[in-house]
């Protein structure tokens, strides 16, 4: 090893007139690897004259010892001849690539070694220099190589920081409140190292809890920081008993005025740097109510243990940080019968759309996979982070016994001709959530559901095209059962299940076989409101 002080430290540079580049170059260390003494000395002096700290080595072995002694991070560039005794420059390049790929390496080749250029670049070399080496070419190549090394190292540091934040986020995701009285089941499929998808829960008093799902724009450190900042604002204001509407309004103002600096008179989305979609569910066990506020976020679904489900609150709207006036209003839901809420970020909607299934069926599949200790393979193609949370009202409830919704739809009578499309959607959703379902059960469920919906659209909606029927499919993994509910707002229809099958078989009327089928296909059928609402159970 030959250690030499840079010329700047020897005082030789004072008369060189190259002081403009020195501030940058003085901080840079270059290793020159060249077996020819004259060439080595030329390179060393040329680079030292530009202010670089230059170390030299005669061989690959010596170069590697030099790099290892100070550490590869101590160098900003390596300039190595290709043709040297024992090992060549490409072998040194391979070593550097293996241990510190960010360190830029320039390979020097002879005129007759042009084919090496391609090989060098493929091996990770930053640049190459032909012999004889011109001073200008040398300086340009080294300067750009050093820039590349620094850029790469900066990216690596950022990447490490982002990953650290991401790991911290995953640890904190859904961290329990004071005594964890509210049970929350979370599924998180991050597509990025850090981001703004987050669920947090707060216990406010002995019987008041709050769950908050947030989705910050972007997938970087700023998004993670914005999310953390929002969580802090929420926690602080909740501790001062502020209602969620006030918390959202406050953070909206903070984003607008401090982060996005939007002109209040002429707000535009052009200057939006940060925005937060959020959904808060505040549960009051004393009054047996849940207050839901969603802003720019899908509204949550609330379901009872028997699978009856509804969307609570308003879906959509714009996120916090866009406009001064918030669009959403809080909605109060009674929760005296227990049950659960399911919340999700828009990443789930995109993933479900890609798979052609309902969000609820995908959320169920995620929870089922989590229960098996697996990751859902279908999520590999998801384009965005996906976060879902099941928030259980009664933690002691035997959750596996309950029916959780897979489909929650409303169909207008005018769309009855689209029944095949609807049925294909149900089928894909069922297969997503319950892949182990036997084919016969699937057939019976789809056929009975089809019959019930067509009956509701045709008769229940009484030919009025804009009337609609509600349609639900729910699943209980413990019972291995599917429950289908179809309701319309019509008066219903009297049907004699004792007599009609006999008449249908003997007199062969050319109508009214739908209800017969329903009664045969389902294990259990329950008609309400004179048949305007039918619930069908299927087990396997």
């Amino acid at each position: 090893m030959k250690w030499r002080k840079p010329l700047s430290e020897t005082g030789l540079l004072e008369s060189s007139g190259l002081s403009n580049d020195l501030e940058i170059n003085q901080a840079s260390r270059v290793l020159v690897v060249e077996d020819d003494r004259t060439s080595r000395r030329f390179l060393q002096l040329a680079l030292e004259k530009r202010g670089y700290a230059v170390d030299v080595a005669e061989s690959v072995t010596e170069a590697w010892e030099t790099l290892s002694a100070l550490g590869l991070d101590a160098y900003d560039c390596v300039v190595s001849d290709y043709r040297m005794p024992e090992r060549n420059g490409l072998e040194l390049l391979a070593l550097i690539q293996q241990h510190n790929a960010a360190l830029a390496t320039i390979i020097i080749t002879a005129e007759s070694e042009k084919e090496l250029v391609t090989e060098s670049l493929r091996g990770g070399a930053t640049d190459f220099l032909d012999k004889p080496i011109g001073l200008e070419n040398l300086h340009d190549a080294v300067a750009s190589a050093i820039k590349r090394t620094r850029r790469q190292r900066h990216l690596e540091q950022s990447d490490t920081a982002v990953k650290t934040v991401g790991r911290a986020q995953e640890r904190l995701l859904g961290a329990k409140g004071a005594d964890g009285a509210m049970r929350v089941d979370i599924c998180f499929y991050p597509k990025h190292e850090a981001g703004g998808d987050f669920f947090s829960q707060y216990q406010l008093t002995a019987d008041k809890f709050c769950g908050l799902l947030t989705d910050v724009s972007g997938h970087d450190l700023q998004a993670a920081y914005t999310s953390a900042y929002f969580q802090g604002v929420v926690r602080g204001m909740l501790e001062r008993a502020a209602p969620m509407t006030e918390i959202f309004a406050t953070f909206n103002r903070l984003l607008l005025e401090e982060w996005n600096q939007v002109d209040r008179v002429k707000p535009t989305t052009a200057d939006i740097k940060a925005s937060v979609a959020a959904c808060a569910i505040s549960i009051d066990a004393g009054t047996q109510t849940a207050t839901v506020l969603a802003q720019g976020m899908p509204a949550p679904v609330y379901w009872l243990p028997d699978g009856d489900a509804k969307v609570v609150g308003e879906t959509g709207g714009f996120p916090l940080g866009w406009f001064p006036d918030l669009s959403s209003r809080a909605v109060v839901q009674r929760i005296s019968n227990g049950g659960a809420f399911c919340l999700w970020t828009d990443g789930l909607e995109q993933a479900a759309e890609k798979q052609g299934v309902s969000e609820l069926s995908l959320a169920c599949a995620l929870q089922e996979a989590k229960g098996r200790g697996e990751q859902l393979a279908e999520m590999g193609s998801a384009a965005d982070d996906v976060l879902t949370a099941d928030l259980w009202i009664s933690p002691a409830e035997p959750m596996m016994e309950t029916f959780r919704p897979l489909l929650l739809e409303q169909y207008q009578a005018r769309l009855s001709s689209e029944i095949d499309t609807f049925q294909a959607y149900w089928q894909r959703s069922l297969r997503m959530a319950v892949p182990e379902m036997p084919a016969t059960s699937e057939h019976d469920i789809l056929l009975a559901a089809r019959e019930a919906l067509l009956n509701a659209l045709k008769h229940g909606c009484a030919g009025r095209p804009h009337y609609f029927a509600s349609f639900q499919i729910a699943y209980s993994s413990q019972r291995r059962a599917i429950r289908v509910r179809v309701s319309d707002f019509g008066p219903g229809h009297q049907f004699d299940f004792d007599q009609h099958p006999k008449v249908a078989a003997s007199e062969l009327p050319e109508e009214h076989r739908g209800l017969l089928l329903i009664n045969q296909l389902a294990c259990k059928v329950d008609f309400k409101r004179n048949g305007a609402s039918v619930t069908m159970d299927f087990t396997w």
Partner: protein
Amino acid sequence: MKLELNTDGKTMTLPVPGDLISTNVETIRHEANALFGTDASQPPKWNIFILDLNTAKMVDSAGLNLIVSLFKRAQQHGRKMQILYSNPNILRTIAFTRLDKHVEMVKV
């Protein structure tokens, strides 16, 4: 869909592409009308009408109603009707409404 009269003229087959359901039942009914002809007093030349549901996985109530209608028309002319099927759910559905007592079900 193409009506197929076999070489000895004894059977007429109406193949159904896929399921027999509400969204295609009118198309199939139209084909069947051609099969039975417009003159109700003229008996068909074939003896057995075959509804080929070999590729079907589902028959819904509209499909069942069509089967009843076709069976009645065949019966009016003193002809028999067969249904070819391969998916067991087709037989189950038809048996639920006891149509298998009237129509011969043939598994292929």
